[in-house]
């Protein structure tokens, strides 16, 4: 897979480097939280506490954290099925995500969506979507709505931008290309974020798509601003993404970014990874975005080993408690089967009610 990483831990950076220790510590903690969540999820899957498909984000943490850090809480976020990180980075509590994966009533979708379908309306997290590319048309709809609200309803200027994530595999789906074209024609404030982790299941990016060596080529025909960003470095992600986000907000023009990353684990839990070498995996593991950022925080921001240790402990505790909470959450009662099919009550259908996480807070 052709990928180069630019920048070392100590290289001077423009934007992220100017942020406070406090802000950067929240990034580090979010990345640690995602990693811990995913590691524990894999264990829970092996212990048969989680069913269906499980796709973990280990190795890609800098992408969700760095991009979401560059957005506001009101900006809509939508992604594919490798989605736990986006919900967590958005602030959805780990216990609701974990309960969802365990098929419990306390889950963010009351156990009806599962790992691939994390939704959190309050946090403008519009899902987790299981069909490759299918979230992209929805994403332009979210962007359309933000603009429509400004232009038709509020007459205001909320100027929200939509973050629409997808894998390199989705580059080859018509739904993405129709969405890019429509976003261009309708001038929609959306950023198409390609998380290029090198593979779509076992298909290396270059085996599935043209111009894999420079995916920003995909943006040219649509007339979009674009950038190719090193996704193994959270500060580089922020630095590369922030100007694109600002411009999108300013001009209401769509943009495209390729963020080069690597998934350290298999595609899902049943992937023997025959299509790539151990050597390649080790090379990327040596670029672990968490280790890299940890080093930076120690060297440049004076985060001590004790402080780091305390952060790790608090993350472990949070996830441990999330798992305990999820396991105690009841299985959905059978009446849930017929709830949320329609908003109204008719025939066997029982109307709708939101998840518990929205009763709180």
């Amino acid at each position, binding site marked *: 897979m052709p990928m180069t990483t630019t920048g070392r831990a100590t290289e001077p950076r423009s934007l992220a480097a100017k942020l406070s220790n406090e802000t950067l510590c929240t990034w580090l903690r979010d990345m640690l939280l995602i990693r811990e969540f995913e590691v524990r999820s894999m264990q829970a899957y092996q212990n048969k506490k989680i069913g269906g498909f499980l796709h973990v984000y280990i190795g890609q943490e800098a992408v969700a954290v760095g991009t979401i850090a560059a957005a506001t809480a009101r900006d809509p976020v939508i992604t594919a099925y490798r989605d736990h990180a986006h919900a967590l980075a958005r602030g959805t509590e780990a216990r609701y995500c974990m309960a969802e994966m365990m098929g419990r009533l306390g889950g963010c979708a009351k156990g009806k969506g599962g790992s691939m379908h994390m939704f959190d309306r309050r946090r403008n997290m519009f899902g987790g979507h299981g069909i490759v590319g299918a979230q992209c*048309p929805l994403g332009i709809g979210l962007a359309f709505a933000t603009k429509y609200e400004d232009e038709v309803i509020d007459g205001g200027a909320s100027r929200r931008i939509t973050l629409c994530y997808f894998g390199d595999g989705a580059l080859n789906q018509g739904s993405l290309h129709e969405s890019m074209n429509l976003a261009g024609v309708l001038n929609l404030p959306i950023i198409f974020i390609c998380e290029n982790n090198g593979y779509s299941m076992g298909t290396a990016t270059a085996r599935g798509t043209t111009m894999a060596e420079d995916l920003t080529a995909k943006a040219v025909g649509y007339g979009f601003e674009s950038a190719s960003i090193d996704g193994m470095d959270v500060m580089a992600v922020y630095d590369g993404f922030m100007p694109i986000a600002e411009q999108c907000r300013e001009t209401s023009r769509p943009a495209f970014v390729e963020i080069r990353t690597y998934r350290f684990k298999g595609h899902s839990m049943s992937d023997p990874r025959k299509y790539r070498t151990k050597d390649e995996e080790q090379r990327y593991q040596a670029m672990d975005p968490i280790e890299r950022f940890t080093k930076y925080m120690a060297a440049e921001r004076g985060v001590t080993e004790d402080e780091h240790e305390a952060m790790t402990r608090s993350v472990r505790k949070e996830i441990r408690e999330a798992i305990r909470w999820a396991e105690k959450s009841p299985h959905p009662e059978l009446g849930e089967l017929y709830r949320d099919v329609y908003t109204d009550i008719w025939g066997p259908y029982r109307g709708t009610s939101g998840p518990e996480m929205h009763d709180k807070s």
Partner: protein
Amino acid sequence: MTRTIEYRDALREAMSEEMRRDQRVFLMGEEVAEYQGAYKVSRGMLDEFGPHRVIDTPISETGFAGLGIGAAMSGLRPIIEFMSWSFSLVAADQILNNAPKMLYMSGGQFPIPIVFRGNNGAGGQLGSTHSWCVESLYAGVPGLKMAIPFDAYDAKGLLKTAIRDDNPVFFLESERLLGIKGEVPEEEYLIPLGQATLRRRGDDCTIVGFGRPLYFCLEAAEALAREGIECDVVDGRTIRPLDIDSIAESVRRTNYCVVVDQSWPFASIGAEVAAQVHEHCFDDLDNHVIRVHSDDVPAPYAYNLEQEMLPNARKIVEAVRAVTYAG
């Protein structure tokens, strides 16, 4: 006060009234704005509502159907026009996965108040790709509603209700009906989804139909009346919810039932209605239900073949005679 207006005008009145009433409603589709509607349904709407609310799209059904669903997730109330439901097939994933299942998969967080509407069924010698009857393909998906209005009055009343509904509604019009005039009141009215209506009254046999084939049902009922067979003609109006109670009530009175459905016979709306009539009226039926469908072949181009393929009055008359042991 009533006026006589075309079916297409009734559709436009429904959309325009709802757009005046609620700023969150907008219309999007191919040629809806500057062209004034491929079938003139949206004629004049661009002028009244402007380009932010009456929006032309390129030919990207997946893209704009999905756009509508995403906008609905955000609380807008889109009306998405398919030039023909035949073209909705390329947007199948969006309209069948994303629209009807989002509320469920999100645990009740994201209702999808959207209307997909356009021409359904044979337009007249358009060949097989353009003559889809999608009702039997789509109606089985839980989470969606489906309406199939017969005349101008229903087109308006049902569409207004569909736009106000918080669930995805598939609204199946017919190119062959757009120019047909009907009485429509000046005053506002709504027709609930899930309420059938009786188009003709008779005690000898029930004919159940939806949308355009109801014309053939009425023609057949007229002919049968001359033979002394009086038929109830029940217009289901919506396929999901299906008003099986009204259908069953009629069948209990007539003891015979013919179901007319313009889609193919196998695994169809006709099959579903027949099965439900058998379940609800087993003891009241004096014969099994007979179904009239389009023939189980792709829609042909040649005029005579197409006419023969579609449900028509002759086939319905024969079915009623057969079911009532009259022929």
